[in-house]
């Protein structure tokens, strides 16, 4: 269930996609062939072999999710997302097209997001948020106007 496709225009990084040349590929600028490799984002270096990195990360996430009870909603939805992205990574070899299909910004941003999801999955194992409510609020706590 993704809001990206439905909500208002996702602000893409300006010029980032245009600047990228990938994996030793050359870009022709004014007749000169130059290797332009930059994500356009400060502090985020271009990833060599992003497919491999994403494959590793997604398989790690799926491994962590196996320890969560099967009926937990977090496991259900995260497995859905991760499997979807995993399939796209495996079928699509061109990085530009993969970026467009994933619709999650630059491929390096997708890698960062996968790392975040992995750390979140590990923390969820400890917090166990699928259990029922810890404590009901006092009766008038959320009443507004008072």
């Amino acid at each position, binding site marked *: 269930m993704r809001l990206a496709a439905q*909500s208002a225009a996702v602000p893409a990084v300006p010029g980032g996609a245009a600047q990228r040349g990938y994996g030793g590929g050359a870009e022709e600028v004014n007749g000169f062939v130059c290797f332009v490799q930059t994500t356009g984002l400060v502090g985020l270096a271009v990833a060599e072999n992003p497919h491999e990195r994403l494959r590793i990360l997604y398989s790690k996430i799926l491994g962590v999710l196996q320890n969560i009870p099967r009926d937990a909603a*977090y496991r259900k939805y995260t497995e859905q997302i991760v499997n979807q992205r995993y399939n796209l990574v495996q079928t699509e070899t061109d990085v530009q097209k993969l970026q467009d299909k994933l619709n999650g910004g630059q491929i390096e941003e997708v890698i960062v*997001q996968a790392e975040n999801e992995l750390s979140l999955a590990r923390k969820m194992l400890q917090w166990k*948020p*699928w259990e029922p*409510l810890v404590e009901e609020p006092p009766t008038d706590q*959320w009443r507004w106007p008072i």
Partner: protein
Amino acid sequence: RLLLRTARHGTAGPGPASPAGAGPAAAVQTRLAGGSATETRPTVRPKNEVEQKQLCAFGEYVAEILPKYIQQVQVTCFNELELLIHPDGIIPVLTFLRDHTNAQFKSLADLTAVDVPSRQYRFEIVYNLLSLRFNSRIRVKTYTDELTPIDSAVSVHKAANWYEREVWDMYGVFFANHPDLRRILTDYGFEGHPFRKDFPLSGYVEVRYDDEVKRVVAEPVELSQEFRKFDLNSPWEAFPAYRAPPEPLKIEAGAKKEDAK
């Protein structure tokens, strides 16, 4: 119990009164009989049903994933999604909203508190988050009282550092595991928490420069006019749409009548 509802915050103007408001508007329309086909109300914000549905759907999604901490989810009439949370769940919920792929609320826009003295847990801590990837905002609310500490959000969002210092200074809410919780806006020796509802507007002390001791001294505040309290409640009912249903009379079990022997 989880409750998803559309809350009508703010004025009870056009929203709940729309069936009643159609009265005078319909009357105007019949008078103009066939003048304009549709009545326009340019001063009323048009309802964005699509956005409301999306926010409701996302709220249900988050509530399904984190039932341990989320007590209530609501969408205001201005299309703002709010998650009402148990205080133990601050760090899990904020981390989830920051790291999950469908959420990605990477930016903590604001961290404030609201003081409602009549409640058992008087302070309501409010976190406003923004997702840059999906261009959407969410509000997370928790509660606490004067003495119960709350987990600091600094480990999740660095921006919470000064906001939590401000909440500590102004309300007296203690944040556990904060790296440096000290006053930020009040004077160095200031006593009291100014934003609480029981703290007076003029404060308790005033400062002046004393020439004898050659420094600034703090003395109890001296107002030229004594404090006057006005009863500003009008005799008419203020919000007819928010009328609470009359409380049913409780019949308590009384002591049994002793049989006369």
